[in-house]
C-alpha cells in the first residue's frame, strides 16, 4: 500500500495547499474587492493578469519562475541580497509558485460574490455608524460566503492538482518539494504501477469528494455566478 515516502508526499501536499489557500485569502480578498469596485483604466489589464494562470500552460509559468527566481533572475538576486537564498528547490519556492498558479481560482469567485452584493446594505451599515472593517466582517463576508467557500475549495484543490510547475522548479526533493502529483509521476516512470494506483486512485476520490462538498454546500445558498 502506501509507503513512508507516499505519506510524506501527502502531508507535504496538504501543507502546501493549506498555506497557499490561506495566503491567497489574505491577498485575494482585497484584490477581489478592488477589482469588483474600481472603475479605473487598469481594471481590465489587472483582471487579465490575474486570469493568466488559467490560460498559460504550467510549463510556461514554471519556466519563467525558474528563470526569474534563479540566481541570475531579478527576483532571485533580490531574495539573495536579502539573505533568503534563492527560491527554486525549496518549499517556499513552491509556495510562491502555487500562489501565482492558483490566484484566479481564489480571486474570481470572491470578486463575483462582491460584485453581486447589494450596495444599499453597505450604505445602511454605514448610516448605522459601523466602521469599514465592521461592515466588511458583519455584512460583506456573510453575504459573500458562497464565494469564499468556492474560493477556498478551488484554491486548495487546484494546488493539490499542481504538477507542471512543481516539476519544473521543485527538483523532486523528498519531504521538501516532492508532492503527491510528482510522486505519482515517479511511480509511473519507474513502472511501479501498483503504488501509482493507490495514490492516483486516492486523488480521484479526494477530488470528487471536495467538489461534491462544494456543490452540496453551495446548493440552497443563493449562488452568485462563478
Amino acid at each position: 500500500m502506501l509507503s513512508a515516502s507516499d505519506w510524506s508526499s501527502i502531508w507535504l501536499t496538504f501543507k502546501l495547499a493549506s498555506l497557499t489557500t490561506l495566503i491567497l485569502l489574505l491577498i485575494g480578498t482585497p484584490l477581489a474587492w478592488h477589482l469588483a469596485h474600481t472603475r479605473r483604466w487598469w481594471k481590465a489589464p489587472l483582471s487579465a493578469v490575474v486570469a493568466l494562470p488559467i490560460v498559460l500552460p504550467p510549463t510556461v509559468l514554471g519556466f519563467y519562475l525558474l528563470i526569474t527566481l534563479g540566481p541570475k533572475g531579478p527576483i532571485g538576486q533580490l531574495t539573495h541580497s536579502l539573505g533568503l537564498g534563492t527560491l527554486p528547490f525549496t518549499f517556499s519556492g513552491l509556495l510562491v509558485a502555487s500562489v501565482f498558479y492558483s490566484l484566479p481560482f481564489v480571486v474570481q469567485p470572491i470578486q463575483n460574490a462582491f460584485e453581486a452584493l447589494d450596495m444599499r446594505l453597505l450604505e445602511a451599515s454605514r448610516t448605522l455608524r459601523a466602521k469599514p472593517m465592521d461592515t466588511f466582517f458583519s455584512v460583506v463576508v456573510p453575504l459573500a460566503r458562497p464565494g469564499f467557500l468556492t474560493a477556498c475549495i478551488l484554491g486548495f484543490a487546484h494546488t493539490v492538482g499542481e504538477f507542471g510547475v512543481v516539476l519544473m522548479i521543485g527538483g523532486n526533493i523528498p519531504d521538501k518539494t516532492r508532492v503527491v502529483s510528482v510522486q505519482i509521476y515517479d511511480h509511473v516512470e519507474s513502472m511501479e504501477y501498483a503504488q501509482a494506483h493507490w495514490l492516483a486512485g486516492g486523488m480521484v476520490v479526494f477530488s470528487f469528494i471536495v467538489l461534491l462538498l462544494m456543490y452540496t454546500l453551495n446548493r440552497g445558498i443563493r449562488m452568485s455566478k462563478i
Partner: protein
Amino acid sequence: MKLFKQTLLAVAIACSTASAWADEVQVAVASNFTKPLEAIAEKFKAASGHDLKISAGATGKLYAQIENGAPFEVFISADSKTPKKLVEAKMAEADSQFTYAFGKLALWSSTEGYVDDKGEVLTKGDFKHLAIANPKTAPYGEAAMGIFGKLGITDTITPKLVTGENITQTYDFVSTGNAELGFVALSQVQKEGKLKSGSAWVVPQDMYTPLSQDAVLLSSAKDSASAKALLEFLKGEEAQTVISSYGYGLPEKTATKEK
C-alpha cells in the same frame, strides 16, 4: 569504406518499394541524444530523402509509451537495458539491436572555473544544490549515484540533490544557475570537441559502468525500409563522426557484414 557503405545504402533504398522514397521515420530518442540526432537527420535526409520525426523524452517514459502503443518505428535509447526489455516483450526486433554510442558523464557548472578538472569540488561540498537526472529512470542519474558511492560521499551529498526528470531538465537546472553544478551528459555541454560554456570535469571512464546506448527497430515497423535504412545509417561512418563530435564514445568497429 565510406563509399562502400553509401553504395550499400543507396542499393538498399533503390531496392525498396517506391513508396519508401521520401518516407517519414518516427523516432523515439532519449533526451541526451536529441542534438546529435538532429544533426544526423539532416545528413540522413540528404543521403536517403527520408525525414525523421523526432520525439525526445526520458528513456523510461518512452518505454512506457511504446509499451502502450505509441507509433514509433525506431527507438534510440540511453541504455541497453530498455531496448532489451522491449525485445523480450516482443515489441522490438532482437537482431536489430546494436550499440550506437557510449554516453560520457560530465560534472558541469555554468560558472567558469567552478568545477576543477579532477572533480574535487564534489568532496569540498561548497554548494547548495547538485542536479542529477532521476536515478530511478535515467541511466545518467544512476551512473551519478554510482560515483557518489565510489567517492564515499552519498550521505553528505544526498540532502543537496535535486533531480530532473530527465537529463535535459537536469541541464536546465544547471544552465539557469539554480543548481551550482550537476551531472549531465558530456554531449549536452560539448560541441565539436570543445566545452560550450562554464566549467566541467569529464568523469574518467573507469568510475562508472559504460553507458552503452542502444538503438532498436520496433516490431511495428519491421517491414519499414526507411526505418531500417536509418539504423544502417546510424552505424555508418558519417553518423559516427557526428556522434563522436558530440562527446560520445564510439563502439568498437566490428567487421562489416558482407551481404
